[in-house]
């Protein structure tokens, strides 16, 4: 279940250098429960690199990231975050249900049961369909369903609206608003203008 105590994600002095090119330097932000951090910038400005640094896939070249006041390594960060990246992270040879069960097994059960989550992303009844039979938008909604079924506070989303139609985008925006109202927080990149009237959105422009 979601905890209502306040969490915080704080980055200080972050920089990322790739192939002798400085993508960003001395970047600082602080995000608390209920807030959204939107990373903006043109292609290649380091949005995805920053998200991957937050996930721990890359080390920042300088600076540090703290979760609730502790360094990420020493905190419960990985038990409280969920990531949906460019790659869906779902197996096309498995059914929808098998994929979601695997996600729950890898972390722990969250706010919604698998069936509730499928209903929420409009995939109810698709349980036993192999993922390779789904459309790109359905796959995207499936990978976003992972956010609902695992226990997490922080969502890290890399272009979550890719290949979604208007309804899909509105749906994800609703889910994001709900998540923030429940004390969650979100870091995302998006080319699409996000429309979250009830949420405190911080913006960082990387270019």
């Amino acid at each position, binding site marked *: 279940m979601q905890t209502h105590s306040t969490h915080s994600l704080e980055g200080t002095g972050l920089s990322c250098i790739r192939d002798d090119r400085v993508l960003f330097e001395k970047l600082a932000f602080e995000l608390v429960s209920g807030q959204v951090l939107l990373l903006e910038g043109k292609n290649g400005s380091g949005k995805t690199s920053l998200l*991957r640094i937050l*996930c*721990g*896939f*890359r080390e920042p070249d300088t600076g540090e990231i703290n979760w609730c006041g502790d360094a990420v390594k020493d905190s*419960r960060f*990985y*038990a409280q*975050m*969920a*990531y949906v*990246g*460019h*790659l*869906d*992270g*779902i*197996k*096309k*040879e*498995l059914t929808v249900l*098998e994929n979601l*069960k*695997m*996600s729950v*097994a*890898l*972390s*722990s059960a969250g706010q919604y049961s698998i069936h509730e989550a499928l209903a929420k992303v409009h995939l109810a009844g698709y349980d036993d369909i192999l993922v390779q039979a789904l459309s790109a938008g359905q796959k995207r909604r499936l990978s976003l369903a992972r956010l609902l079924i695992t*226990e997490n506070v922080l969502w890290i989303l890399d272009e979550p609206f890719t290949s979604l139609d208007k309804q899909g985008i509105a749906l994800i925006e609703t889910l994001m608003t709900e998540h923030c109202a429940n004390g969650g927080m979100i870091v995302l990149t998006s080319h699409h203008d996000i429309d979250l009237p009830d949420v405190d959105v911080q913006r960082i422009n990387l270019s």
Partner: protein
Amino acid sequence: MSLSRAFFAVIRRDLVLALRRRSEIANPLLFFILVITLFPLGIGAQPHLLQAIAPGIIWVSALLAAMLSLDSLFRSDFDDGSLEQILLSPHPTSVLVLGKIIAHWLVTGLPLLIVAPLLAVFLGMPNHALGILLLTLLLGTPVLSLIGAIGVALTVGLRRGGMILSLLVLPLYVPVLIFAGNAVQMAGSGLPVDAQINILIAILLMALVLAPLPVAAALKMSIN
């Protein structure tokens, strides 16, 4: 949030995946059978020679079959992002990858054990050596998967890692090949093989404990 549940879920998922793409099981097994059946044809009607080199043939083929199957260990997970999700799990990565390695062995190593006695008889290996052959395969093939996993984890991020993978991994396979081949040879001559078997057990236990850690570290590097 239970580690054992995550561990068995990884094993089960990989077994289901292997069943759905059967070529993954069939490929190394077919290779193993084909190589061994080609030897008698190439050498000709010399049963004594064949019998003498049978342990070596079987073990070298098992080694190459294991090499052939290695790339599938992390490739698809790397390509579709499942590996990212495994690395982000709050559970220790080394335990989860051990699950993947065990599933890989069940799919690619265990079938070799099942056909090996048949092929050994085919090469004229004496019956009393069959038990030892099976024992060495049982102890040795998991080591091949465990050590191979380190190499795959290091090279999965490279576009063409196949060549480097063989160069990295094959030298590390040599001790297993020497002790296992020697044990089967000795058993064929009716000599005791306790020492070789003990060393194989030691290698297996060490690989089981030590291999998952560098695999986890190397995967973290590769995903970068």
